[in-house]
């Protein structure tokens, strides 16, 4: 295997590591919320400020956090992954 190919492998691995970590985070986030809905009813009914229950707050946070996770990935892919791929492809010519 040439050095070029092994660097490409490393880059692939880095992308999959990132993808799987972020997928795991999303799964934990959502099923953590569902677990609270199932087992923490009284906790979620607690009102942080009058009207805003912990359940509504966490539900909104799940949505916002999912979006932030997609932002983290896009930012990483655009600023770290893509330039390295480009550099590698150019050096491999």
């Amino acid at each position, binding site marked *: 295997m040439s050095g070029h190919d092994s660097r490409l492998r490393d880059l692939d691995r880095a992308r999959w590591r990132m993808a799987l970590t972020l997928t795991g985070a999303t799964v934990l986030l959502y099923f953590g919320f569902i677990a609270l809905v199932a087992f923490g*009813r009284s906790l979620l009914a607690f009102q942080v400020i009058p009207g805003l229950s912990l359940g509504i707050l966490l539900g909104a946070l799940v949505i916002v956090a999912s979006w932030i996770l*997609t932002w983290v990935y896009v930012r990483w892919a655009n600023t770290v992954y893509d330039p390295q791929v480009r550099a590698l492809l150019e050096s491999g*010519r």
Partner: protein
Amino acid sequence: MIQRAADTAIGQPNAVAMAFFFVFISITLAITFWAAKRTRTTEHFYAAGRTISAGQNGFALAGDYMSAASFLGIAGLVSTTGFDGLIYSTGWLVGWPVVLFLIAEPLRNLGRYTFADVVAMRLRQTPVRIAAALGTLATVTLYLIAQMVGAGGLIRLMFGLSYEHAIILVGIFMIGYVLFGGMIATTWVQIVKAGLLMSGALLLALLVLLRFDMSPAALFAAAAERYGAGVLGPGKLVSNPLDAVSLGMALMFGTAGLPHILMRFYTVPDARAARTSVFIATGLIGLFYLLTFILGFGAMVLIGPDTIRAVDKGGNMAAPLLAELLGGTPFLGFIAAVAFATILAVVAGLTLSGAAALSHDLWVSVVRKGRADAGEQLRVARIATLVLGIVAVGLGITFKGQNVAFMVSLAFAIAASANFPALVLAIFWRRYTTAGAVTSMATGTVATLALIYLSPTIQVDILARGNAWFPLKNPALVTLPLSFLAGILVSLLAPEPDAAAGFTRLERQTHLGTGETR
């Protein structure tokens, strides 16, 4: 208390609704006419010539995904059950990060028109294409039936049109967009619809919040004061935690297996645009589901659950009622037209992806073994569109008055259990084989259909039996792992050296696109 009797203009022909509807139809037909002149090859018909920008595709993805069920259904559910409805709002969103992390880029890099392209890539074409096309058609048909039946009912409720006329009207426009304008017209119909839906929902939420000093907390507090603090916390909907987890799995991984969503990634120029488009779509869809919090509780406080149920048992008219209360008949007309546009756009997207499975996967790849010329491919794609559109209208009329709400979650369960595992294993796993792929997709589809039939959804809710053999309403908790297991076991039992060699050959392309050879 502001509760009113159900005196509403809903169900009567509404001049403003007609006017908005007419404007929407005129714009979309103009787009279709423009797109038809640009649709000369299958590349245009299925993938809009790969010229859609990331921003446009972000809006189109959101348009494809936000159905009338999510707009009218969730607002209705929140307005009648409170917090429990919000569980759906979050569940419908969390599939999108998964689409981005695992699927969007490899799909764009490997395939051409359908997700079967990617699954079949290094495997034997015929069996894999047939299995994947059946998974696609099962998902699309169930989703279409649910949308058509919902459309018939909603349009009857809002415009006073007969059910059959409504379905035929939807069918004519849907076939028109796709048949003549292909993916270019479908994409722009989605973009217009997403823009309308977002502005309608934003405006409605703003009008609600104006009544509560712009404070969502004050709105929720008013709901708690009137209907008890219980509406702000989990209620009866999630009585069985396993049920909630199973539904959650179907929503989360089903999104990444919906053929009409996956197909959109082929319309952008490269993987980077595919990536950005999911980020934009997730933002739009997330904002929309956050707005359902306001719309739902707004309808609960300002209209009241009893009045909402009196107009429509399912609560679907909560958002239109709210629009009428806050903006009078003109705003009701606008929201009704938006709901109609929503339905039209979603069924057009579904029809196109089903037609691609019929023509590209079954006819061109299986029957003609890839030897059909460009003219024949385009012709077959259009015939498939016409056939599928007519079948959809027929099914919509056949299922009149049936309880089809379960069909959407069934479509998600099949997408999660048949399409998603096949796609993930094909992208990730070197030792995946033809036999493994076919077994996995067949197991996912058959097990999902069987378990849904044995579940309380069919046995108790529809057949009115006392109990059901299978306890969960949604089977994804069982069928998704089962499908992965079947695919992995069969692949390990009978290795396919050619397929493994193909994996190595395609490795660069999977992660890097066509790269240097572009």
